[in-house]
């Protein structure tokens, strides 16, 4: 043993490979992160304007061993110190998930230590537990990323009620598609966030889909079409397009609807705390406006620091730890599930 751990300490190695990032992390007792290595493929994907599945899985294979090795080195931990393995097994790209899953299973098998396969979307929520040491359920969580838009009531550890989700495009996906139409590059979220600061959010008003009364679901495909229509119409008329104004108007439409539904949901559930999670939680407009609205309604708001918003293995390790102490175990025939639902445990 290199580092001094107590006998009862749980030392988790966590692995995340559901999409862009190859990531490995070492955690002590779930909330103390000893290392969190993220090897991003974003540079690679920039050329293509999005995630390329074949590139994603091939790069994960090239990266995985180095990333795990580095996580151990930075944490000053050896394989022999590990007492537990956590890994994302869905949702995500199957080819990409399988790389991390195979590595996790191999280590759990060789070291004869327990394995917990976990849900990536749930993991995003747990990023908050790493940052805010006293935080615990119950609360309302808004999970917004490139692949997901979920409004969740987390009653207790492992106990979720999905109150709303997207019916078509994820919020982050809408950001990516509009950024591409505006020629802003990938990933679209940070680009739109940046240029929207120079624009007038009320110059062009795009429609917001509230859906039927009382629904906490989201729909962003109509907004996407409205922006594309606007761009086409302006082009056909030979009129100038202010990229900053379009970005600002589009971002406002998304942010407004996310916030309105989140606050309404918190008030209805009587929850006095909202927890933001996922890659889109890095959006500055969403953070600032949600903070203002929460303050108005006496709701406590928590969100993770930027480096824990995007995909990372530390959040996966934290979730795997809580599943482990609740007595859950995954078997070594655990499979990757591309459309894994929240609350499904294996």
């Amino acid at each position, binding site marked *: 043993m290199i580092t001094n751990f107590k006998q009862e300490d749980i030392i988790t190695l966590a692995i995340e490979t559901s999409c862009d990032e190859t990531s490995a992390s070492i955690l002590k007792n779930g909330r103390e992160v000893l290392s969190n290595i993220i090897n991003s493929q974003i540079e690679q994907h920039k050329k293509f304007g999005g995630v*390329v599945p074949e590139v994603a899985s091939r790069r994960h294979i090239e990266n995985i061993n180095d990333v795990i090795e580095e996580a151990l080195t930075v944490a000053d931990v050896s394989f022999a110190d590990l007492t537990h393995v956590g890994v994302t097994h869905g949702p995500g790209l199957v080819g990409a998930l399988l790389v991390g899953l195979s590595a996790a299973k191999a280590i759990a098998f060789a070291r004869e230590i327990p394995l917990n396969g976990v849900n990536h979307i749930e993991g995003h929520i747990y990023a908050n537990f790493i940052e805010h040491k006293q935080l615990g359920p119950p609360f309302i969580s808004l999970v917004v990323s490139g692949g997901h838009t979920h409004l969740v009531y987390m009653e207790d550890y492992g106990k979720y009620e999905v109150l709303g989700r997207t019916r078509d495009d994820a919020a982050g996906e809408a950001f990516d598609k509009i950024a591409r139409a505006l020629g802003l590059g990938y990933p679209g979220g940070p680009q739109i966030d940046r240029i929207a600061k120079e624009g007038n959010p009320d110059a062009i008003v795009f429609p917001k889909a509230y859906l039927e009364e009382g629904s906490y*679901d989201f729909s962003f495909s109509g907004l996407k079409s409205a922006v594309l229509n606007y761009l086409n119409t302006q082009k056909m008329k030979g009129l100038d397009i202010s990229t900053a104004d379009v970005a600002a108007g589009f971002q406002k439409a998304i942010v407004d609807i996310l916030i309105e539904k989140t606050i309404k949901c918190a008030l209805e559930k009587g929850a006095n705390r909202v927890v933001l999670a996922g890659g889109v939680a890095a959006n500055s407009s969403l953070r600032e406006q949600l903070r203002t609205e929460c303050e108005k309604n006496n709701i406590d708001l928590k969100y993770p620091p930027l480096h824990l918003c995007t995909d990372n293995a530390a959040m996966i390790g934290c979730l795997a730890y809580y599943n482990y102490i609740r007595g859950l175990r995954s078997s070594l025939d655990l499979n990757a599930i591309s*459309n894994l639902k929240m609350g499904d445990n294996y």
Partner: protein
Amino acid sequence: MSCINVSNQKELEEIAEKLGKLVNSGDVICMVGDLGAGKTTFIQALAIGLGVKDYVTSPTFTLINEYEGRIPLYHFDVYRINHIDEMENLGYEEYFYGDGVCAIEWADLIKDILPYDYLWIEIKITGAESRQICFIGTNDYYREIAGELLEK
């Protein structure tokens, strides 16, 4: 090629839902059209016709989404595919030659590996709400389906 004009989303959905009731196990539906033309909307309505209860969301992130209906629906979005080899990694053959219905967005990008027969549907943007929907069936079976869709 036979085409039909629709003036709004509801009319497009009616045609797609009707298609969902007509398709059979092993059918392949190819969807093409610009970003925002309504490919996903069309497949969502097709899923209703198939009796799918879950929300049909954009598969841009996972590339393939599977749904349970009267028969299984495999919803592809191959927009991000750069090379045919990448389809092999997805195990596309198990879907294309499987028991469900395959609905493939941006099918023009993977023309080389499509099965011999399929129903080709192209959606053209003709206005803010209006669309032209064109059908090509590669054999009598698909041509018959296309014919039924054109009847109002």
